[in-house]
């Protein structure tokens, strides 16, 4: 049986989580295969919530499958598709089904996905969603009604270390800590010098007296660096051009471009492993969150490259 992520986060020196995406359709065989492959290799598995605004099996259903297969799930919950009633209902349902960790996100905009005509919701934002989790944890809903049975979620959030400009991002980061985020999983980082500077700023913020009070009861906020597996030079360039907040340095793109034919993915795995190794050795932050988008079966290889396999 997997250990509670809450305990792992406070006790383990270097935490590793990975992301898996639910299927579009009812065939969960690949998902289950990924769960079985990864459940003992990482500390928790995030499940995306209609990732990139593409309609799929819900995060909650996949989280339940993770529990049934002996893993520790982190429910990703976005504000895109649900109003405050549906969000709270989803959270209560997740708790009832055994999910104990939730990552609160804004969510991509609907026009980016496969149902671009859909009505976007965004009734709450990610900070307000974190506060909502806090309310449910205290046995009340957003309207102040008492619950018959409270939740006790560990809430997490995301932050983009490469955001430009960074200052508004840092202000929101501090709000998320105040709103109850106990861990952060960052957008992808590739330039570790820049990430080091981000961490210095984040740590300064967390030492702020108000945020320190927030953390006194539950232990320090943990930050896991996002690692997105690069599969080719083309993919890296695409992300630089089209994915805000991601900056793959040119030397890594050249490294991928220089790979032998058919070996770019192998080079991408080496790069990811190297980044993780460096973050671990330099203790840049408290762990990593691996996003192998569609290549979940290669996560063990990344961990082996990092010397954590």
């Amino acid at each position, binding site marked *: 049986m997997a250990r509670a992520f809450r305990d792992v986060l406070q006790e383990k020196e270097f935490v590793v989580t990975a992301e898996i995406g639910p299927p579009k359709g009812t065939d969960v065989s690949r998902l289950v295969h990924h769960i079985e492959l990864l459940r003992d290799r990482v500390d928790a598995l995030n499940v995306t919530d209609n990732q990139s605004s593409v309609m799929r099996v819900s995060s909650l259903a996949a989280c339940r499958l993770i529990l049934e297969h002996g893993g520790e799930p982190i429910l990703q919950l976005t504000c895109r598709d649900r109003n405050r009633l549906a969000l709270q209902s989803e959270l209560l349902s997740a708790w009832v089904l055994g999910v104990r960790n939730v990552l609160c996100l*804004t969510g991509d905009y609907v026009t980016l996905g496969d149902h671009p005509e859909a009505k*976007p919701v965004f009734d709450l934002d990610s900070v307000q969603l974190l506060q909502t989790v806090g309310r449910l944890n205290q046995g009340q809903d957003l309207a102040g009604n008492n619950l018959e049975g409270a939740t006790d979620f560990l809430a997490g959030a995301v932050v983009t270390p490469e955001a*430009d400009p960074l200052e508004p991002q840092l202000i929101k980061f501090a709000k998320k800590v105040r709103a109850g985020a106990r861990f952060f999983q960052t957008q992808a980082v590739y330039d570790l010098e820049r990430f080091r500077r981000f961490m210095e700023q984040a740590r300064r913020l967390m030492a702020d007296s108000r945020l320190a009070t927030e953390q006194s009861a539950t232990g320090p906020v943990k930050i896991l660096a996002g690692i997105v597996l690069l599969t080719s030079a083309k993919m890296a360039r695409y992300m630089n051009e089209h994915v805000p907040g991601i900056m793959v340095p040119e030397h890594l793109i050249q490294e991928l471009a220089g790979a032998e034919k058919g070996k770019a993915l192998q080079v991408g795995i080496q790069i990811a492993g190297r980044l993780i190794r460096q973050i671990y050795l330099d203790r840049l932050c408290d762990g990593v969150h691996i996003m192998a988008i569609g290549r979940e079966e290669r996560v063990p290889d990344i961990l082996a490259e990092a010397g954590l396999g």
Partner: protein
Amino acid sequence: MIVAERKPLEEIERMLADAERVLVVGCGTCVAVCMAGGEKEVELLAGQLRMRAEAAGRRRRIDRVTLTRQCDREYLDPLAAYVDEYDVLLSTACGAGVQLLAERFDGKLVLPALNTRFIGVAEGPGLWSQRCLACGECLLDRTGGICPVTRCPKNLLNGPCGGTNHGKCEVNPENDCAWTLIYRRLEKLGRLDLLDAIQPPKDYRPMTKPARVAHPAFQTGSPAGPK
């Protein structure tokens, strides 16, 4: 003001179907300023419809009139004298004007020639952009006069999402990120402290449709009301 755009001519023709007597009714206020449904645009639309009717060998009478405002009953009344001469009233007002026209002349088929887009401002010659969602609970005091409810596609109240991209919005790179604008404006004003407070979830009750506003002076029982 209300900003609108004319529907494609093909769509307007489809709506008109086989109507033989058409009165194009313009509006001299917002939609005249945004060059979608004022006197000039009505003249152009009537001309285009006439030409197409002639080219198709179709008998169709197309007349035009432009009212000061279509969203005020008093300006609609003069039409009563001759509205019976027409099968169809084709309105180039915003959606509100079209509806009041249809309400005033409820025995007539009233058709919309425009798509109403938003409440906005003139950004430059021939360019308008949205500024207000009419949410009924203005929060511009907290955001340096820049509305995140309108200008952020996700109506975020507590800062930018991860899609902010060098000051632009990932949803439409032509648009500035509202939260980058807000940050810069408050920085300039020396009021970044306004970003400190966590904004609570918005109350959407004022947006319950259809909304109504009654001026206190006109409410019965009000000391300033009708005697």
